[in-house]
Each structure stands twice: as structure tokens, then as C-alpha cells.
């Protein structure tokens, strides 16, 4: 703290600052703890489950968790950007299903991994673009309704266009390779997650566009006043979320060597849950990719652990619901502590 306090002019001023500063430090520690809370909970979870079932920490099982989490993690990162702008994308699961069907249909015509991947990515981007454009230029008050509409449209299209309205077997070898494990024991899909994370990290932390995403989420009105192209920033996050759904489609088709209109059912809820239990704020502007990744892992670990412990699948849903409540309440607590910190600042002046 000391190096951050900028040159108190007088000793009296320094003394006056001292008391609130100490209080502020306690608050700062509490706020830091809250920010690292999800990571701590994940670590505790891993230790606790590791102690109760020895199988959990075996390399094979860790690889399983990572492989099972890959799709949620990729799509949740896209959801994270949408939530940063105070939005929500309910269509990602259905979008993913439609993308796998598009890829599956291409595969029936030609066994080409690049073309199949292209089809899946293009389908994802197209749906994302519809979401963003209708939301922004259709002047909708909130993206909830349009993404609910595209959820329905995409699922319907996926079912209608898939052969016999059901799962289609087969994927090019280069895509099924994603379902295999690398020599290190890590699933190949893990590297897709890492690559998506790296690219989005560069976008959100180091590029002007990423700064604008945060600005739009933090204060949309001020963002307009500052000349930020708010509408295009909003469209872009839905396009990115759609692309992430398309990439998720590639990974899931790879793991199952199939495409299906039934894939991604309730994935929208898993990804929203991941972002929130990972510690991002639902109010927008607050959060980072780490939230989506930690949240996705938490969901993966809980599901895996409860499986290993022979706890029924319904309890998994209950457990994840409870964690969502805890996460949302800690966001409320964080806002409360920040208000306290502000009040302390005002007294210290």
C-alpha cells in the first residue's frame, strides 16, 4: 500500500490517512480473497475429493476431466465476453448442435477435415452474427429474447437437417484425433482450449477492442460519449461466442466421432454457470477468461467426483445449483465491501 499512497503533503495528512488506510488494507485483503475465492474453492475441492477417492488424482482420470471439460470451457469463454458486456447468450448449446450437423453433412459429401471445420465454424459465426445484429440493430432491450429465439431456431434446424433427425456417425481422422490423448497424458482437446484461451487473452488484455469490451460493460452510456463503437463491440462478442460454439462443436464431434442435433443440450446453462461460479460479475464489466476456465473446471471436477463417489446424477445438479448461489452472493458481498472501501477513502481525504 505504501508505495501506492501518493506523497502525503504533510505529516498531519499522513497521520489522518493512517487509520482509514489500515481499515482499507483489511478490506483490500477481503476483496482479494473474494477475487481468488473460486480458485481456492477449486483447489479445496480437488484436495477434498482426492483424499476421499484415491482414483480421482490418477493421471488417467485428470485427463478424463480435462477432456470432459474442454467443450464447456471453450464455449464458456465466449459466454464470458458476452456477460462482460452485460449480455447473455442462450443459444450457444443449440448453435453447437447445428454446427455439428453442418459439419456432419459436409463430411457425408467429402472426407475433408478443413472443410468440416470450416462448416462448423461458419455455422457458429453465422448464428452469433444473427444474435448480435438483431439485438443491436433491432433495438432490443436485452439479448435474452433474441438468443432464446435462436436457441429454438437452431435446435429445430439441426433436427430437421440431420439425416433421420438423429446422430450421424463419422468424422474425418484429423478431427477424431482431438478425442485422443497426447503422449503427455493430456487430451488433445486440451490444446484447443489453451489456444482459444491464448487468443482471447491477447484480445481482452492487450488489444484496443478488448478494452472497449470492458468499457461497454462498465458504463455503456459513457462508452458512447467516449466515441467507442458500442454497437459493433456488442455484435462482435456474440460473433465470438458463436465462433466458440463452432469450435466446441469440432471438439465434441472429435471426441464422439459423430455429429448430432441433440448435442449441447443445456450447454447454455453450464457455460453461464461456469462464468458465474468462476467469479465474474453478472452485472457486466467485471471478470476475465480465468473465471470461465476455473468455473468450467469446477463443474467438471464436481461431476467427475460425484461419479467416482457413486452419487446420483441429480445430486450433481443440486450441487452446481448451490455453488451458483454461493457465487452470486459473493458478488453481492464484493460490491458491499467496495462501497465500504469508497466510504473509507472519502473519510481519509
Amino acid at each position, binding site marked *: *500500500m505504501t508505495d*501506492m*499512497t*501518493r*506523497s*502525503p*503533503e504533510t505529516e498531519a495528512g499522513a497521520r489522518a490517512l493512517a487509520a482509514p*488506510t489500515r481499515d*482499507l488494507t483489511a478490506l483490500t485483503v477481503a476483496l482479494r480473497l473474494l477475487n481468488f475465492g473460486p480458485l481456492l474453492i477449486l483447489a479445496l475441492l480437488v484436495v477434498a475429493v482426492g483424499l476421499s477417492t484415491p482414483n480421482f488424482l490418477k493421471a488417467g482420470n485428470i485427463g478424463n476431466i480435462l477432456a470432459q471439460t474442454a467443450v464447456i470451457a471453450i464455449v464458456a469463454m465466449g459466454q464470458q465476453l458476452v456477460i462482460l458486456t452485460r449480455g447473455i447468450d442462450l443459444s450457444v448449446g443449440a448453435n453447437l448442435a447445428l454446427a455439428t450437423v453442418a459439419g456432419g453433412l459436409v463430411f457425408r459429401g467429402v472426407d475433408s477435415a478443413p472443410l468440416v471445420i470450416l462448416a462448423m465454424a461458419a455455422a457458429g459465426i453465422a448464428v452469433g452474427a444473427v444474435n448480435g445484429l438483431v439485438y443491436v440493430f433491432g433495438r432490443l432491450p436485452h439479448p435474452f429474447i433474441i438468443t432464446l429465439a435462436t436457441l429454438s431456431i437452431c435446435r429445430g434446424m439441426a433436427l430437421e437437417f440431420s439425416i433421420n433427425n438423429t446422430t450421424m456417425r463419422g468424422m474425418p481422422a484429423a478431427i477424431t484425433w482431438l478425442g485422443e490423448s497426447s503422449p503427455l497424458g493430456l487430451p488433445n482437446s486440451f490444446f484447443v482450449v489453451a489456444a482459444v484461451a491464448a487468443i482471447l487473452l491477447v484480445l481482452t488484455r*492487450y*488489444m*484496443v*477492442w478488448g*478494452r*472497449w469490451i*470492458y*468499457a461497454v*460493460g*462498465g*458504463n455503456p*452510456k*459513457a*462508452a*458512447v*460519449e*467516449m*466515441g*467507442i*463503437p458500442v454497437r459493433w463491440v456488442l455484435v462482435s462478442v456474440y460473433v465470438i461466442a458463436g465462433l466458440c460454439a463452432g469450435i466446441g462443436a469440432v471438439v465434441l464431434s472429435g471426441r464422439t466421432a459423430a455429429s448430432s442435433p441433440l448435442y449441447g443440450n443445456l450447454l447454455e446453462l453450464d457455460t453461464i454457470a461456469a462464468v458465474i461460479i468462476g467469479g465474474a460479475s453478472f452485472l457486466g*464489466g*467485471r471478470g476475465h477468461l480465468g473465471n470461465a476456465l476455473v468455473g468450467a473446471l469446477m463443474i467438471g471436477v464436481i461431476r467427475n467426483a460425484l461419479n467416482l463417489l457413486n452419487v446420483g446424477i441429480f445430486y450433481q445438479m443440486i450441487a452446481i445449483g448451490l455453488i451458483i448461489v454461493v457465487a452470486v452472493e459473493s458478488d453481492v458481498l464484493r460490491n458491499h465491501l*467496495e462501497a465500504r*472501501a*469508497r*466510504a473509507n*477513502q*472519502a473519510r*481519509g*481525504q
Partner: protein
Amino acid sequence: MTAAPVPVLSVCDVHKRFGAVHALRGVSLDAWRGEVLALLGDNGAGKSTLVRCISGVHAVDEGEIRLDGTKVTFTSPSLARRAGIETVYQDLALFDNLTPAQNFYCGRELSFPSWLPRGLRFLSARAMDRETASVIDRLRVKLPRFDAPVALMSGGQRQAIAVARATVFARKIVILDEPTAALGLRESRKVLDLIRQLRDEGNAVILITHNMEHVVELADRAVVLRQGRKVGELKPDRSNQHELVSMIVGAEG
């Protein structure tokens, strides 16, 4: 005052209506470089509406606004900003989730390489931090932490950040809407110093305030609005302070 022959800002017979409400009824005023113009009036007198017309939030219904003698029509605040008019509103337009440096440069980030479209460039984060730190130091604004989001800062600190941001980017006109209303004595002093500095750097400063002490201390001219009309304009000093107050409340006779 080194009065240029043409005022930097000239508001000519401006009218603004909101439905049945006639908020501005033919207001004219000039602002000159290197001068602080106080804009006074009771609540609802039309000060904020006038400011919003100048800064591009509202379009005027009648009359015109001239910048350096040429008529301008701003369709958005960012166009006015680009033309050199910085406005610090009471709500400050800060981004709570960003740090002071990120707030300073939001929407006009320093970035590279310049051949890419603006949004696709990379942030020159260090240069922005350095510049902001030096401005904050020069203006002797005290912040608890430089790397924390402004959500954690007090009203005074936030005000100082907003005014400091305007000092960095203003090229012609700075409009300050009640910049000291929420501040304690010491913080108010600092903001007044900032205003002097803005003026000395050759800006026209338009100051909305209810604090007569500040008007007498700082303003070169005061324009008084009442019920959407200009009811007086004078050079404020200790002797005519009462006259000014009665103009504002409409009790001069």
C-alpha cells in the same frame, strides 16, 4: 485577457423544447480562450440543457452554435469531443471497472501499429500509465492506488480523475458541471486549481456552480439564466455578488 477577435464558442439565440417544455428560449453567449465563464442559474433554469446542446447530447431546435466562428452541428458527444470540447458531467462518465489510466484513455487509447484499424491495434499500456501518472502527479491528485479500478475511490478522487482527464484532452473548451458539488474543502481547492490550469493553457472554461465564492474567485464573466432566458451577464467580484444572487433567484426588482 488576450481576447481573440472571434470567440472560440458562440451560442446564438438558441431554443430547445422538450415536448411542451420550452427549456431554452433564445440564449446567446460567447466564450473566449483563456477565460473562465460561470454559468449560473437556479435549478431548472436551463444550464444543463444549454451545456448538453453545446456538447452534442441535444440538437438545438432554433439558433446556432459556432466554434471559432464557423457554425457546427454535433450529432453526437464524440463529435463535439473530437472538435475539442470536453465536458465533465455530474455523473462523471467514468468506468468503474477500469483503472484511472484506462479511464483517461478510454476511447482514444494509445496503441500500435498505426497501420491497423484502431480497434485491432495493441494497447501501449505502459505509455498510458506513465502519462496518466505524470498528469495525476502534476495536478497533485492523491489516489490510494494507481492500479485499482476507480470503483474503489471516493467521490473526490473520482471527480479529480474526471477533471484531470478533461485537462489532458481539452483543446478548446472545457465544460464543468458542478465540479465541486460533492467535494470537501481540500478537494474543492484542488479542482479549482485544475480549472485555473485549464484556463492558463488557453482553453475556454465554462463552469456551472452554485458556489458564489468560487464564481467570484475564478470567473472572468458570469452569465445568469432564469427560466430558459439569459437574464444577466457581468464581471463578478465581491461588490456585485449580491446582485448576482438576486438575478439568479429573480428578486432584483
